[in-house]
Structure formats: C-alpha cells, structure tokens
C-alpha cells in the first residue's frame, strides 16, 4: 500500500472512531409539535410547558446529552402539521418528535415521521388504529388510548347502578369513539344519544331535551370552549342538582379556570389528577405552578413523562441514538418513574396504567382542580392491543 493510501486509511479509521465518540457529546435534537394557536392553544402550551419543565429539572439534558428543543405549531391543520413534521425530520434532523395534542394531526404526521426512522412519542393523542392493526414500532404513547377515559365513566356508571343515562358528544370521529367507549361498559338504559356540531355555543335545545328525559346522569365529551359553555349553561338551567354529570376531557385544568364554581362536584374519567399521592407528582405540581402560575392538566404531566421516558431510554443506550433497534428496546423498558406511579408499555407501545373517577373541587388557595375519588381500573390495557401484530 502506498504512503498516501496508508495515510488516508489511517485518517479514515481515526475519523470513524472520533465520529462514534463525538456522537455522545453531540446535542440531542428533540422536536415538539403541538397546537399553539386558536382556542385549543392552551392545551399545546401545557404540553410544551410540561416537556420544558422536565428538561429544566434534568439540568437541560436528557440521558446525559444536552437538549436542543425545536417547538412547532401545527395550527390544528393536518397539512401544516405534515410540513412542520417533515421539517423536524429532514432539516432539524430530530432524534425524537414529541406530540401532538389532536388525533387528526397524529394520523397525518405518523407516516412522515416514522418512515424516516425517527421515534414519535405522543403525550396525548392515542387513536385506536395505531393501538391495533396499524401499530408502529417507532411510535410510543405516554398518555392513553383515546377510548379508555370514556370507558372509565361507562364502568363507573354501571357499577354505581345508574339506570338511565343521556349521552352527548360533538359530531366527529372522536365524539363517536367517546360514546362507543362509554357504551362498551354501561349496559343500562340510554335516554338519548345526541351529536352536536363542533363548536356549538348555545345548548338551550339540548338542555331542554335533557330536562324532558329526566335521566339519572348525563355523560358528555365536550372539549375546550364547548365544555366551558355547556357546563355554565347546565348549571344555570338548574340541572346540576337533579342529574349527575359524568364526562371525559370536559372538566379539566385547562377549562376549570373559566368554568369555576359551575363545575364543582362534576365527575370526569382520567388516568391522573394533580392530587395523586406520590412524591414525584407532588414535586411536579409544585414546580409547574411555580413556573407557569397555572394548575397542570394531563397534557402537561404526560409530556413531562415523555421527557422522562427519553431520559431513561438514553441512560440504557449510553446516549446512543444511532442504533435504532437498541433505542426501541430501551424505550420499551420504560426505564423511568412515572408521575402517575405504575407505568408499563403494552405490546402495542400504549401504556398499561390505572384509571380513576375524578371530581372537581376548589383548593384552599381558590384555584380549581380535579381530585381522585375512586380507582375504576387497575393496570388496564386498551382493547385494541390484541389486534397489533407486534409481540
């Protein structure tokens, strides 16, 4: 071998070695994609805040590597989300993409992100298709499968011996899934099943129907401003004393600041509440309130857990993100202490966790939050896992 060839070979080997070593020192790029504009912006803000708080508490590092965070707004538009997600994958070369809030955005960005080999972690949206037949090895969920929170209320109503329930949800896929989830466990009488247009403001007509039907309880899924409107009008119509209020995603820490006393005593189904009694959660709630002056909701804690998940996995791979198989195996191990206590991944990468019936209460400092009343499901897996081909 000639001298120049030998030198080139030595240089190449040296560079290879150096590159492998330098990777551990290279910044970890994480892209966060959430809805940060329009009425649902408060949810995206909670997601972003929760994730940023975790990184801050870990000293700006995840798994020992310094984090470079890029936050993108999907504007609740699937086409915008796809462009931003592709940007995170191609331009930013993100190692992880964390998000989104909404299910329709998740469905849009799944292929662009996971096809490129990037790990997608959802701290909120958990559609049934990706839990079942379309499960994806590069996709992990730290929240829940969308149906589960509604099933919690269905089981609660069934166990509590309620005879007649009035159901109401917005007229889109998530609304229909919500009602289907409730009916999976509630076997009593359905007084009526009403689908309202998304974004409806005035519920006089529906409230009149509820009063005429005289049910034991109503179950509603009315996210965001819809929930604020309905809760206020429900209370003003004097129905709160006669009809039990069961819900999912309708009375939570993002809408309670507007609903206030009108929502007192109303029930919800959730996998967590700020008063969940364990040391790591107590610290999280205190830190979040100090940093952002608001009570955290599920969107924040699930994003916090997503950061802990990444941190725990990178500790197992010693900061290495290039070996994708090792990274996926490390993520599956869920090597972190979740804020909700017990946390395990199912074969479809969705969590196995406890679910509770929560109640709206007012704290001593005047702020409103949900509080755990009763555990409804222990170590509960979603019903779609059996359809997932991953084992």
């Amino acid at each position, binding site marked *: 071998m000639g001298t120049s060839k030998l030198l080139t070979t030595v240089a190449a080997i040296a560079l290879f070695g150096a590159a492998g070593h330098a990777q551990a020192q290279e910044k970890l790029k994480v892209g966060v994609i959430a809805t940060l504009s329009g009425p649902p912006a408060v949810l995206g803000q909670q997601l972003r805040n929760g994730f940023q708080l975790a990184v801050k508490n870990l000293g700006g590092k995840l798994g020992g590597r310094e984090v470079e965070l890029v936050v993108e707004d999907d504007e609740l538009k699937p086409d915008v989300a796809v462009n931003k997600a592709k940007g995170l994958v191609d331009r930013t070369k993100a190692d992880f993409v964390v998000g989104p809030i909404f299910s329709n955005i998740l469905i849009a960005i799944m292929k662009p992100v996971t096809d490129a080999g990037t790990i997608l972690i959802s701290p909120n949206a958990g559609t049934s298709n990706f839990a079942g037949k379309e499960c994806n090895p590069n996709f992990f969920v730290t929240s829940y499968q969308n149906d589960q929170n509604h099933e919690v209320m269905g089981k609660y109503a069934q166990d509590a011996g309620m005879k007649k329930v009035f159901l109401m949800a917005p007229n889109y896929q998530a609304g229909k899934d919500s009602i289907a989830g409730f009916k999976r466990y509630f076997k009593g009488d359905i007084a009526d099943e009403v689908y309202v*247009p998304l974004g409806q403001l005035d519920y*006089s007509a529906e409230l009149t129907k509820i009063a*005429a039907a005289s049910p034991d309880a109503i179950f509603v899924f009315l996210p965001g401003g819809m929930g604020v409107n309905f809760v*206020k009008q429900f209370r003003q119509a004097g129905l709160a004393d006669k009809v039990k209020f069961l819900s999912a995603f309708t009375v939570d820490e993002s809408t309670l600041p507007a609903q206030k006393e009108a929502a007192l005593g109303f029930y919800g189904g959730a996998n967590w509440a700020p008063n969940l009694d364990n040391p790591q959660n107590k610290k999280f709630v205190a830190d979040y309130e100090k940093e952002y002056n608001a009570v955290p909701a599920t969107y924040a804690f699930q994003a916090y857990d997503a950061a802990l998940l990444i941190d725990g996995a990178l500790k197992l791979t010693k900061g290495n993100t290039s070996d994708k198989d090792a990274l996926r195996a490390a993520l599956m191990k869920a090597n972190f202490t979740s804020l909700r206590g017990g946390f395990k991944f199912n074969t479809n990468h969705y969590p196995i966790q406890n679910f509770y019936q929560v109640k709206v209460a007012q704290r001593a400092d005047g702020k409103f939050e949900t509080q755990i009343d009763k555990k409804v499901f222990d170590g509960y897996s979603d019903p779609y896992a059996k359809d997932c081909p991953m084992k």
Partner: protein
Amino acid sequence: MSTGLFVVQVLNGLQFGVLLFLIAAGLTLVFGVMDFINLAHGVQYMLGAYLAVAFYALTGNFLIALVLALAAALVFGLLLEFLVFRHLYDRDHLEQVIATFGIIIFLNQAVKTVWGAAPLTLPIPEIFTGSIVLMPGLLYPVWRLVIIASGLAVGLLLYVLVSHTRVGMLVRAGATNARIVSALGVDIRRLFMIVFGFGTMLAAFAGAMIAPILSVEPGMGDTVLILAFVVIVIGGIGSMRGAFLAALLIGLVDTLGRSFATDILRLVMPPSPARTVGPAIASMLIYVLMALVLYFRPAGLFPVRGR
C-alpha cells in the same frame, strides 16, 4: 314529543334568534350603508367580551364594565376606521375582505398575547342571577331574558333612529346613493365614521351581554361571524327589519332542527342511522335555507329598495 316540550323549544329558538339579531345588527348597518364588507365584525364582538371581562376585573361592577367596554370598543373601532378602513371604501369588495380578514388574524393573536389562550369567564350580575321555572325540572336563567330584552330594545332603537331621525334619514339616503348625498353637501366621510362607530359598539355590546353565558376565548368571533352573514344575506343587506326577521327565522329553524330532526327521522328509519343522519341534517339546515332564499329571492327576503 309533548306540546310543552315543543313550546319550550320554540322559545329557545326565538331566544337564539334575538341573540343572532344582536350580533348581526351592526354588520347589516355597516354593509348596507357603506357597502363595506366588514369581516372584522366578529373580532369586534370578541373584543367587546374581552374588554367587559377586563373592566369587570378592575371595577367589580357589570354595568360600569359594560359602559367602559363600549367606550373602549368605540375608540378602538374609530382607530381601525382611521388607520385601515377609510382607505378601503372606494375599493373592490375582495380587497375589503382581504384587509378585514387580516384584522381578524391580528386581533385573535393580540387577544391571545394580552389575555392568554385559556377561556375566560364573566359572571352574571347579582340582580339577574335568578331563574324562572320553564317546565318541570328546567330552569331558565333570568339573564337570558335580559339578553332577549336588550336585543328587542336594540331593534327598537335602531328602528327609531333610522326611520325617525335626521341622522337616520341621511343613513338611509347614503345607503341608497352615497355620491348624490355627498353632492348635496353632506359630509359623507363623517357620516360613514358615525355609522361605523355605531356598528362597532353594537358588536361589542353583543359580545359583552353574551359573555356571561358563553366562554370568552380567542376565535370566539369566527363562528358567530358566519352566522351573522347568513342572517344578513337571508334578511336582505342593509335592511334592519330583514335582519330581525331573518335572525328569528334562523334561530327557530336551527333550534327546532337540532331538537327534532333525529326524532322525525326515526319515524322513517331505524334509530342507529337516524342518530348519524339527524345531526348532519340539522347543522346543514340554515345553509340550505340560505341557498333556497338566494335562489328564489337573490336580494334577500326584505331587500332595501333602489339598489
């Protein structure tokens, strides 16, 4: 389906109609008189609600908050008129749409920057917090009756102003032919400014009155804007009477549709498809109505003559 239930739903429909009129009144005034498409009407409505919340937090009194909100909204409206709208009166409708759409985006973002993205709330004033019993088990908040009353009062005020005052006469003349009125020596620019300011105040008034029963959030004006346009298109642009009657009609059609569509469909099809088709039809009804009106009476139900 009892007669009692039907009567209550009709009342709900009329109430919703008066709510729509309150929102659409300002829009038809501006569009009718100045031939100016003001898409920013929705955000002016939203601004009224936000200003009411802000002044209520400062003063603790709803009436004072309302008056201050109206004053602040008027000032803001006149500022917008001076900065932006004044240059658009002679322009194409499309350019007016683009400019006012830009104002929507700007104000939605501004409101989010100042007050945050989370929904806010305004409590009902103390004296009106009671309810009346509408039917067994259903209470009707007195505040909704106050809204109906204020909607009717606004309607009456506008009728008196437009038909029986000098300013109203100038407004009606300006709506018919602005150039001739100007040639007759009337300061048409100042008239437009007065009309626009009044339209802004009406939008803000609607926002502040409705805030206690609805959530105050960025983008709350956008859904309302579409409904307001449907009202004035069906009623006839520039016509107060048209706006009032169209608003009541739309309120009734929408409410009765939402209440009974599924039940009516269940007479001809099994319950499960009825539950899917019913809400879909109910939400389309007012737009189908608008299409029918445009087909048979393109100028609306009560068009202003001489256009």
